[in-house]
């Protein structure tokens, strides 16, 4: 496996870094502070095509690789983790299940508008009593003539309210357990589909996280995604891909915190010299850099396998587990290096530390990732 950057990726990184630095970074502190969804940034991202990177051109996407998509989420998250997760949830959780499981008609109808960013995507699996134990779905879908009737609640849904297309999971036959779960495509403004209150979160505070409420929500029969009863498999496969997105986000947060720490320790003087001149600083930062590079290689490797059509489920779990724990370690140490200043909102590292925590929780907690990795070993 060769993960050296090719010319196309080099040009892509040049563009995305410049975009992140000039358009995303200046708003990062404000959208965190105000807890506001960065609509203007979304508009700018639409223009350059950041919402359909790995989607084939025939479905209105950019025809890029998962590697490029991962790089984009990393570079956006390096300066603003909120912006990174908007793209990640839309691409990996909103569009991928339609691309991978949709009928030709569904793909032709939904993907072009999603890949252009006109319709953002979201994913509704988690319920109040079905988190890590995702099989405990209470939401139901009952076929009534030519329509499915959905009832139930989904919680902690990223992009909720701003997204137009929701991939939602519901029980179509409770007696079958996980084999009774099916996937559906629900559009915003469908009667019977409303949103609950916005969650007030510790980090990624600019991203919209809300509850989806279905009360006798009727959707066309044709909006079943994949075969009836295949919902659980679709959800798990979608999350495999999503984990590469979140690992990329975590990697970006870690790199961003490391960048800030190197800059700060060069400037900050104590006992007559820069913090960076102390060997303790150098050794600790060397350790962090090594961890970040290791995380990057795991992310690149998982993306490479996905692009190559190889199995990547355990790889996605490993890169997400390691990158998330790396983000937590690097940001915690970054705050420590910044001392009292690091604890204030004058410096970005406290935000990065708050943002990092979610990467150990969503799209499968670190414990779930260990289950997936061990599951492959003890099959």
């Amino acid at each position, binding site marked *: 496996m060769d993960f050296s950057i090719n*010319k196309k990726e080099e040009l*892509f990184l040049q*563009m995305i870094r410049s975009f992140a630095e000039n358009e995303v970074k200046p708003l990062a502190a404000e959208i965190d502070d105000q807890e506001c969804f960065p609509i203007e940034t979304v508009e700018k991202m639409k223009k350059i095509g950041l919402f359909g990177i790995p989607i084939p051109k025939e479905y209105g996407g950019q025809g890029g690789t998962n590697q490029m998509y991962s790089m984009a989420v990393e570079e956006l998250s390096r300066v603003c983790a909120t912006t990174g997760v908007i793209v990640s949830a839309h691409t990996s959780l909103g569009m991928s299940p339609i691309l991978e499981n949709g009928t030709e008609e569904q793909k032709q109808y939904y993907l072009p508008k999603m890949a252009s960013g006109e319709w953002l995507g979201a994913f509704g699996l988690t319920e109040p009593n079905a988190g890590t134990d995702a099989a405990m779905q209470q939401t139901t879908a009952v076929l009534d003539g030519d329509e499915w009737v959905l009832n139930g609640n989904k919680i902690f849904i990223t992009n909720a309210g701003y997204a137009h297309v929701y991939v939602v999971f519901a029980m179509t036959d409770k007696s079958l357990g996980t084999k009774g779960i099916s996937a559906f495509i629900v559009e915003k403004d469908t009667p019977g589909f409303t949103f609950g209150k916005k969650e007030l979160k510790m980090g990624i505070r600019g991203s919209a996280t809300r509850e989806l409420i279905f009360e006798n929500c009727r959707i066309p029969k044709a909006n079943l995604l994949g075969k009836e009863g295949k919902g659980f498999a679709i959800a798990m496969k979608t999350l495999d891909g999503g984990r590469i997105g979140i690992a990329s986000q975590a990697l970006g947060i870690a790199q961003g915190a490391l960048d800030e720490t190197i800059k700060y320790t060069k400037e900050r003087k104590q006992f007559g010299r820069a913090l960076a001149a102390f060997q303790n600083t150098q050794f600790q930062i060397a350790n962090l850099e090594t961890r970040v590079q290791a995380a990057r290689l795991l992310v690149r490797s998982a993306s490479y396998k996905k692009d190559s059509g190889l199995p990547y489920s355990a790889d996605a779990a490993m890169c997400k587990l390691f990158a998330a724990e790396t983000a937590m370690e690097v940001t915690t140490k970054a705050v420590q290096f910044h001392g009292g200043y690091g604890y204030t909102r004058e410096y970005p590292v406290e935000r990065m530390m708050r943002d990092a925590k979610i990467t150990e929780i969503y799209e499968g907690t670190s414990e779930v990732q260990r289950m997936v990795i061990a599951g492959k070993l003890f099959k």
Partner: protein
Amino acid sequence: MKIVVCIKQVPDTTEIKIDPVAGTLIRTGVPSIMNPDDKGGLEFALQLKDNYNAQVTVITMGPPQADAVLREAFAMGVDRAILLTDRVFAGADTLATSNALAAALKNIDYDIIITGRQAIDGDTAQVGPQIAEHLGLPQISYVTDLKFDGEKNFTVKKETEDGYQLLSVDAPCLFTVLASANKARYMSVAGIIDAFDKEVEVWSADTFPVDKSKLGLNGSPTRVKKSFTKGTKAAGQMYEVDSEQAVEIIINKLKEKFII
């Protein structure tokens, strides 16, 4: 409407240093970028493409690796890219450079030619005007705004030291543009993905008719006598005072120096 934009790959001079002994630029490890003024000119061309369906060609003279700026231009949306590369072009001063570019431009259809005002590595601001002279075109330099009437007339804002001039000119003509004139667009993701599938036309000094004695080092009358780093000025004085006191301090300083 056909537009040719002349661009140059330059070292990012915000990161460059001069070797104090040799007096030359230290280029190792310095990233190469599209010259900022040229990018401003390219943005105007692409806006004319967006609004009037103009066809945009970029041309650059440089070593084979200058291909990178042409790929960047493709990713921003240009239609055609030409790389003038040949050992015969090497070591050119502004005159030899403009001789080569003008000779090449005679083989390309254009209504207008756009160049940057100047390149950040040489800062001469001579190549654009020289091309216009070689081709006998009217030229407007230091352009910060362009309005096209949709036929052949441009109303152009030209920056001057103490203000600006509004000028009217008909195509064919040449403009030299400032980077501050606009905010150049980002490359698009789709543009980047396609950029490497497109053909960069590589032209040598044999591709088009040109007097080779006027090219490269041999065609360059300029001789560099010495390059050196300017000495640094003494640190200024900082005052944190209110505006009235500030005015008093400034007036006194100016009187001390017999400026007023």
